[in-house]
């Protein structure tokens, strides 16, 4: 079942195109991370779904109702879409209870507020004013407020960008758990690829106003649809190769090839797919090492002078100058 379906949505501001033929499907009960560099139209997409912005063309269906399309334009308040803003946008003149209960009908208000505050773990903060809360607590209140009226879908616009780094990691875990416990469908906008991979059940990568790839985090990471997606989602080593039937030749060696590409191709390899095996007689050597504690990133030079990155665990510790042989686990081939 689809909770949101955006089809061919376009939106331009004066001469800047924010969305062009934007397509997105959000299955019920999933969290979709909408990720892209700044200016790729993520926030505009959210605002169009929420009803704060009107597309120039295209349709948006929420549940089984078309909310925007030819001749249709449902007001934001009738869309049952919960919104969590980047700056939280808590009503400063209302208590936590007032904020969370604002969108709930009178009859069930008290009960529902208690329920949702329990869900986000803020039951004892019910009588505080927003300015008396920490950033993370405000974030939870904003989430509780959006969940309280039981919306079809919750939209989160860069929700962690106002938090400092340690809090951000905790909050993205918590928010995911809260959304999952609530059984909510959510679209989560971020420009941070690691945040997108951690939080989303599905990652939709945006570039220049359209979605260029959609899939589970491990799939889009390991099988990106283009070199651009590959490097946007993480570190990548991009090298040239020549494909012929059954194999690809590169300076790192000859790999088996099952694709149809022939002739010159790009080959993408994640640094963690490249393994250095210490060998005094190896023909490659370590140029530089960045040590991160949980792993290390090595810069390795090949006999031809080409350099590649390799990410390995903390041991064995390799030093600059150490000679190695390289092995490659996985690779992705892109036709030119």
């Amino acid at each position, binding site marked *: 079942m689809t909770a949101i379906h955006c089809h061919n949505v376009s939106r331009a501001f004066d001469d800047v195109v924010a969305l062009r033929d934007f397509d997105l499907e959000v299955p019920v009960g999933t969290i979709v991370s909408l990720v892209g560099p700044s200016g790729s139209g993520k926030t505009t997409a959210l605002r169009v779904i929420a009803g704060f912005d009107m597309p120039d063309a295209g349709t948006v269906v929420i549940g089984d109702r078309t909310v925007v399309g030819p001749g249709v334009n449902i007001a934001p308040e009738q869309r049952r*879409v919960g919104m969590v803003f980047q700056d939280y946008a808590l009503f400063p003149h209302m208590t936590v209870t007032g904020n969370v209960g604002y969108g709930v009908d009178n009859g069930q208000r008290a009960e529902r507020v208690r329920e949702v505050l329990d869900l986000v773990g803020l039951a004892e903060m019910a009588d505080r004013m927003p300015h008396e809360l920490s950033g993370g607590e405000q974030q939870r209140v904003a989430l509780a407020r959006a969940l309280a009226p039981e919306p079809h879908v919750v939209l989160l616009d860069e929700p962690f960008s106002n938090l400092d780094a340690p809090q951000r990691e905790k909050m993205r875990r918590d928010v995911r758990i809260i959304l999952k416990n609530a059984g909510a469908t959510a679209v989560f906008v971020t420009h941070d690829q690691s945040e997108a991979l951690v939080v989303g059940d599905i990652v939709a990568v945006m570039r220049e106003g359209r979605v260029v790839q959609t899939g589970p985090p491990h799939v889009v990471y390991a099988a990106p649809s283009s070199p651009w997606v590959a490097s946007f989602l993480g570190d990548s080593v991009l090298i040239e190769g020549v494909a012929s039937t059954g194999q690809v030749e590169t300076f790192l060696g000859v790999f088996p090839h099952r694709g149809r590409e022939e002739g010159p191709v790009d080959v993408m390899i994640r640094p963690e797919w490249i393994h250095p095996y210490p060998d005094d007689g190896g023909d490659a050597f370590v140029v530089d090492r960045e040590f991160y504690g949980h792993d290390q990133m090595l810069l390795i030079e090949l006999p031809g002078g080409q350099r590649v990155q390799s990410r390995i665990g903390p041991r064995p510790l390799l030093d600059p100058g150490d000679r190695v042989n390289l092995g490659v686990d996985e690779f992705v081939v892109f036709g030119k």
Partner: protein
Amino acid sequence: MTVQAPIEGHNDPLGAEEMATTARRPRARRPPWWLWAAPVLILIPVLVPVAALFLRVLGATESAWATLFSIRTAELLVRSSLLVVLVTTTSLIVGVAASWILVRSNLRWKSVWGVLVAMPLVIPSYVIALSYLAASGPRGLIADLTGVGLPVASGLGGAWVALTLSTYPYVFLITAAALRRIDPSLEEAAAGLGAHTWRAFRTVALPQLRPSMGAAALLVGLYTLSDFGAVSLMRFDAFTRVIYAQYSGRLDRTPAAVLSVVLILIALALIFGEERTRGRSAYYTQRPSRPLQPRTLRPGARAGAITFLGVIVILGVVVPVSVLVAWVVRGASLGMAVSVDWGAVGGSLVASALAAVVASAAAIPIAVLAVRYTNRATRWLERSVYVTFSLPHITVALAVVFFSVNFLEPLYQSLALLVVVYAAIFLAQATGSARAALLQVNPNLEEAARSLGKGPLAALRDVTVPLIWKGLLAGGALVFLTTMKELPVTLILRPTGFSTLAVRVWSAADELFYARAAASALVLLLVAAVPMYFLVIRNREYVS
């Protein structure tokens, strides 16, 4: 400094500065139609009659054109322009000097001085005129006390003094606000290069003050051009006085209409002229990075500064108030009836309170349209609000009379029409305040309310209005104060039998019953002082 609040509606009468800064991200949704209802309902009863006035004059007979091209009109033009130039010049000098002393020097008791220097804001120009008339002349207070009869302070000189004292506080407030925004390091740099105090002021501060001085000059010029009370008591035949005489004294009202149109055209020329000479970039919005380091005055300069401030406070506040008190005492001792007219007090309070409520209520949708839905149409709405504010009040009153007599007979001389006209001409003050407050409100709050299932009206009621409440109150207080002081519209549009303090003061003074006029004027000051005090107090907590 504690006297910043009253300028909210004044410092930029045309709103041009704010218009230039509203280039926000476009909000695609159209404003709900009902947001337009209140502003249109309030502005139409003023703007349509003004337009009708122009049509009437265009279609008028040859006698109208004869009026227009008579020597008399030329004389009026010269007299009014002379007064505008004189008052604007002295007002700028006094206001800028006072603001520099009170913002940039190390004088003690600056906040007390600030309140005193701004005080003439609550004193209507005709009350200042009345006090100077009642003090001078063979029947005046000074002659009475000393036996030496001074010449009567009327005519051009009297109008000049009275209007300078009424208008310099606006210059003071506007330029003080601008001075506070100037980055102190500029002046310090000048000082570091060896410039002494005067040179630093002249070469660094003054050029930066130019845009705000331009805005202040426009405000003072329009005020002088539109002033009716002071010039008529001073018997100086400026446009407004002659228009009123033509209106009330003759059956043929065409000359009054023709002169009104000329006066409106002059006012519009002033507004658009000032707009064109001002580069948008001249407005700096930068906030100083650190507090200003006050300049130490040398003993001689300090004495001069204190004398200067003392003299303007004596002339602008002490003289008017003590003359009024003295006349009330004198009148009572001579057995004259100086009792307070409670009907007029009630009339003033009711009319001003209604105007304040209506204007503040209409300011809400206007502020929302201007801030949240900035587009061509809403910019025009804002513009017409400020132009309405700048129209000479007597011409608005006449236009409304002519129109309502012909087309809206039942509304002619009704309290409802009077209140709507008040609200329309002072709408800019309420709007300025509401707009400033709304700019502080995060637009996501309203969107959050919408996404929680509330319609635009409910979001406005539950979120926007509670958050701009203080701004609305301040704007309302300002409208209350200005309505209380307003004279020509009240004189011309008030219902039969309806009186206000302003009308009592003016008519008693016009008939030279100074004791009676002084009693009403004192009550007027007491009642007007309340909103002023409120504004000052509110501002103090705003700052801290």
